[in-house]
């Protein structure tokens, strides 16, 4: 029934835990955590240097433009002053200005035709002023100290000299640069610190989830990603991962249960079969006893086969492969046929069967063989569990639009409400039915059949008894 080498049961190593096949074969892929911070730091450093250069250049230009404008304004002011107040008045003002001092680095002087200084700051007398216009000159005593000198003829042979101390301009430029550099560096360090912190946080959070995945891979299916209340996207991710892990664990546990159940359910009949075969092989046993033993062995083999067939049918229905054999059929005729087949069995169990079905065909897309099996399982359950004296009602309803509903109801002891969901699972048998024959696969097949038909199996209380409703609604018809 199954290819060589494909085990029916989950092979479980002695440790009882599923281990990863070989830890060496797939080393955990680790991204190098220092690469990103280093790259970011390099980028930040380049940005800081570029920023400082730009600030320096822009500051220098702005200062030069400003100073030139100031010198021009001062010149225009004194030219107008000389026109209004005369050369004498101008000389007085310039002398007064020179006495107060030049905090802004500008110095003024008045010279006559021969270049002799009449009034103003003394420092200008040592400078080599041009006849007219701008010139940059060095101080004779200290050649490193530069001045920018503007000569403006005033008429009458007088010349107004405006001298700007460039070292004052440099000091201003340096002050602007220092301030900007400080601001840029503080920002850069702050950003870097925040970046490192964020990076460390991202690493820590992703590692927590990765660590969970590793524990799962290592066989600890109960591992879960940490989720904080009022969390962030990582907690969202962790929560989603946890939902998935929960489902996986549920499925794994389910498979393990099924595997254990298969092992148990097959071992019992196989053990009985071995016993029967041993009795049959006993040469001293009388002939009728040996024949009976062979019959018993046969019956046990049939039990094993029935369990395997039921499991294969369920797996087949669940895989959806059976869809290719679905066709539009009269569901009512199919159900009535199976009801007829079970008629004598129900009578033998001391029960009565009542069938309700429309006289016109109930057409729906269905898998005939599987549906017959499912309806048969429901009727078989009624025969076994409803008890003598029960009335079994079989009902087929056309729910319209290619949908149909098959109900099998009895007024027997029923199933406790808390077990109604559980009995649809594989190998689930309730305590009350432990002693009767059965594999616990009947309703699981009905549920799988309903699912294949796009519907579901609904179990409910019939007050008293059990009502099982198999809904078919394959919309592709």
């Amino acid at each position, binding site marked *: 029934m199954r290819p060589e080498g494909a085990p029916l049961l989950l092979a479980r190593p002695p440790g009882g835990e599923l281990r990863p096949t070989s830890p060496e074969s797939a080393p955990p892929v680790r991204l190098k955590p220092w690469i990103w911070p280093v790259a970011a730091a390099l980028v930040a450093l380049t940005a800081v240097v570029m920023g400082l250069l730009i600030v320096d250049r822009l500051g220098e230009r702005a200062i030069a433009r400003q100073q030139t404008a100031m010198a021009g304004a001062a010149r225009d002011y004194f030219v107008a002053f000389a026109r209004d107040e005369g050369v004498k008045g101008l000389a007085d003002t310039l002398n007064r200005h020179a006495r107060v001092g030049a905090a802004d680095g500008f110095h003024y002087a008045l010279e006559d035709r021969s270049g002799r200084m009449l009034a103003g700051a003394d420092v200008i007398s040592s400078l080599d002023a041009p006849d007219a216009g701008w010139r940059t000159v060095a101080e004779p005593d200290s050649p490193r100290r530069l001045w920018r000198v503007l000569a403006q003829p005033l008429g009458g042979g007088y010349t107004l000299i405006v001298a700007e101390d460039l070292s004052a301009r440099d000091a201003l430029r340096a002050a602007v640069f220092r301030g900007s550099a400080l601001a840029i560096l503080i920002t850069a360090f702050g950003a870097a610190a925040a970046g490192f912190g964020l990076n460390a946080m991202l690493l820590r959070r992703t590692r927590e989830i990765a660590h969970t995945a590793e524990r799962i891979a290592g066989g600890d299916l109960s591992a879960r990603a940490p989720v904080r209340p009022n969390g962030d996207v990582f907690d969202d991710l962790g929560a989603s991962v946890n939902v998935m892990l929960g489902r996986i664990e549920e499925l794994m546990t389910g498979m393990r249960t099924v595997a254990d159940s298969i092992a148990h359910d097959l071992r019992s009949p196989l053990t009985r079969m071995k016993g029967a075969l041993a009795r049959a092989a006993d040469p001293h046993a009388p002939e009728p006893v040996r024949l009976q033993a062979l019959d018993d062995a046969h019956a046990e083999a049939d039990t094993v086969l029935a369990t395997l067939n039921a499991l294969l049918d369920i797996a087949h229905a669940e895989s959806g492969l059976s869809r290719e054999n679905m066709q539009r059929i009269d569901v009512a005729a199919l159900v009535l046929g199976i009801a007829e*087949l079970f008629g004598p069995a129900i009578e033998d169990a001391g029960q009565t069967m009542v069938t309700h079905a429309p006289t016109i065909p109930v057409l729906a897309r269905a898998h005939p063989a599987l549906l017959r099996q499912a309806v048969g399982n429901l009727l078989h359950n009624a025969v076994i569990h409803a008890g003598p004296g029960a009335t079994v009602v079989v009902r087929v309803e056309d729910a319209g639009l290619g949908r149909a509903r098959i109900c099998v109801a009895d007024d027997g002891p029923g199933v406790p409400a808390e077990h109604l969901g559980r009995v649809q699972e594989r190998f689930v048998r309730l305590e009350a039915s432990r002693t009767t024959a059965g594999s616990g696969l009947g309703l699981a097949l009905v549920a799988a059949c309903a699912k294949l038909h796009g519907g579901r199996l609904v179990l409910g209380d019939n007050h008293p008894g059990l009502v099982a409703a198999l809904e078919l609604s394959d919309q592709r018809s």
Partner: protein
Amino acid sequence: MGAKILVVEDDGGTAETLLNGLRQEGYTVEHVADGRDGLYLASSADFDAVILDRMLPGMDGLAVVKALRAADVHTPLLILSALGQLDERVRGLRAGGDDYLAKPFAFSELSARLAAMLRRPVTRQEVTSMTCGDLQMDLLTRRVSRAGRRLDLLPREFKLLEHLLRHKDRVVTRTMMLEELWDYRFDPHTSLIDTHISRLRKKIDDGFDTPLLHTVRGSGYRLSERP
């Protein structure tokens, strides 16, 4: 009997059981283990029936069936398969097989099916009445009587008796009845056919000297005058 049977089966143990059993029942049997050889033999020589495994080396069983039917060879064909799923039977019959039997099977089951298959062309003719000893069935009026006494049968009992009469003097297995009368797969936990048979037996045999409906141990039932 002496009918010529071709067995195409690659599993040694199954083939041996089949060959021994069939020879004991008086059939002339030929055996090949490969799908291609099976197709060649089945289409060239004149066999009365072919027993074909579903999974074969060389050529898939279903492909052999399809090739044979495409070549207009209509030898009755029984497919054996370890694929017991509900769909496989449909697939096998759709491909052109006349019957389908899931492994593992009892030889008595195969033997009964083979016998039924070899007889099939004859019984397909229109019949209006059938008899077995003093039991009579009229298919047109749907009346059944035994020794002149009218028997009152339910539709399901009539259906069952008709099937048994069509296979008179031969073993009909529970599986064959379930499959052919109700399209239902055999489930060993339900003695469904036995419950039907016991009711039918009560109606046709109770109160008469010679029983007509016999239980064949380990196989099924047989309707016959002979015990």
